[in-house]
């Protein structure tokens, strides 16, 4: 077990990189997922179709394949995802700005995949608001956007937050795949490096890596439990 302390810098570096991609991917997925959710509940049939098609594709495809497409199809199309080299943001998240595009490719795949689940979590919240609320808003003359903004979304948030949290926890765990798609130095790839390249025993390394993920996911889960308990009390 001493490997965790002896090579603490390697574990800490891996933790930091995984945390970075998770923060970025969660932010991106929440934004994109919200957009897709609005499409899916829109009164305009073509927009609804686009939203539904998006969810059908990305919810039903293995993340590994989304990663493959991102890592191989984007370069084939001549893109290094340079639009993600966002000024200032790349100072904090240094991998966004590097010439090697694999971090950006992995980020795109994680965002695209997770957004489908974010969309469905948000939509389940919207569906939890009784139809009469939206009808009353329409009968006052509110437009679709006003209806969402002033009546439906403020009430849907409560029912969305717990499923959303589960989606983000799943995303953190899914990020373990990125090491197989060229990203060097995240938490999972750290294990590969220490065991395959340096010959260290697998189990202690794997325990160190597991602790890294648990540090991210357990507090998030505990926070969700708290929110859920508070809502249960409020509902009484």
């Amino acid at each position: 077990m001493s490997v965790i302390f002896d090579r603490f810098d390697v574990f800490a570096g891996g933790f930091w990189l995984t945390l970075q991609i998770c923060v970025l991917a969660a932010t991106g997925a929440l934004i994109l997922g919200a957009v897709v959710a609005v499409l899916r509940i829109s009164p305009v049939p073509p927009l609804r179709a686009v939203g539904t098609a998006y969810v059908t594709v990305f919810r039903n495809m293995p993340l590994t394949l989304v990663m493959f497409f991102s890592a191989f199809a984007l370069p084939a199309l001549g893109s290094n995802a340079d639009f993600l080299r966002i000024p200032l943001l790349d100072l904090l998240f240094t991998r966004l700005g590097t010439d090697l595009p694999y971090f950006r490719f992995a980020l795109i795949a994680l965002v695209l995949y997770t957004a489908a689940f974010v969309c469905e979590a948000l939509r389940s919240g919207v569906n939890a608001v009784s139809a009469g609320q939206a009808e009353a808003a329409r009968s006052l003359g509110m437009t679709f956007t006003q209806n969402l903004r002033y009546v439906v979304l403020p009430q849907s948030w409560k029912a969305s937050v717990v499923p959303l949290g589960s989606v983000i926890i799943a995303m953190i765990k899914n990020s373990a795949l990125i090491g197989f798609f060229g990203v060097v130095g995240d938490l999972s790839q750290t294990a590969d490096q220490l065991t395959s390249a340096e010959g260290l025993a697998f189990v202690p390394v794997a325990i160190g890596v597991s602790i890294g993920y648990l540090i991210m996911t357990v507090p998030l889960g505990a926070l969700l439990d708290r929110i859920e308990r508070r809502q249960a009390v409020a509902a009484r």
Partner: protein
Amino acid sequence: MADEALIVLENVNKWFGPLHVLQDVNLSVARGEVVVVIGPSGSGKSTLCRAINRLEPISSGTITFDGQPLPAEGRALAKLRSEVGMVFQSFNLFAHKSILQNVMLGPLKVRKEKPAAVKERAMSLLDRVGIASQADKFPAQLSGGQQQRVAIARALAMQPKALLFDEPTSALDPEMVGEVLDVMTSLARDGMTMVVVTHEMGFARHAANRVVFMADGQLVEQNTPEEFFANPTSERARDFLSKILTH
């Protein structure tokens, strides 16, 4: 009379799948008129009421409001709906907003009126329906009858040309029905154009200008309340009245 018509339905049909819930309905409501729609459950009267502001789109026929045919979904329809108030069976007050905010939301966001003026009007409307002292409470803290009176104030805050009531007292405890009907009766006296779907025969008798009887998706009979209750002409209406008036 014809040019005074505010709401006109012509040959309106509505299908829910194979179910023909409105069958060639023709109805004209004049400005200032109070029309009460009665009939057995499933006769299509709620659908008729909801069709007037297109909460329920119709399958064929035309509905005109204030001389304009109902527009398709979009901004024009939203504008029309802002001129037709609606009161629902289940109140549908915005659960996350206070009573006062419920009444103010429409004028503030739909009409973009000044908050101070809206607040003054909202308070005077709440006063009129007898809820002014509860303005800062939330809907769940009020009784059903109080909630429904707030819903009426919310509809009135938009200064509508007509009000639609979809079974406004059907979800209320019997002791609270009276307070809601009192408010509706006073609106009727003040000349508000109203279409009221209800099972309250007392209200139909004393507040309606006209009673419309529906059964099986058809508009079977319409008459003044005096005539309708004394001498129903159709067998269907006689049967319906004999069932509800013997208790």
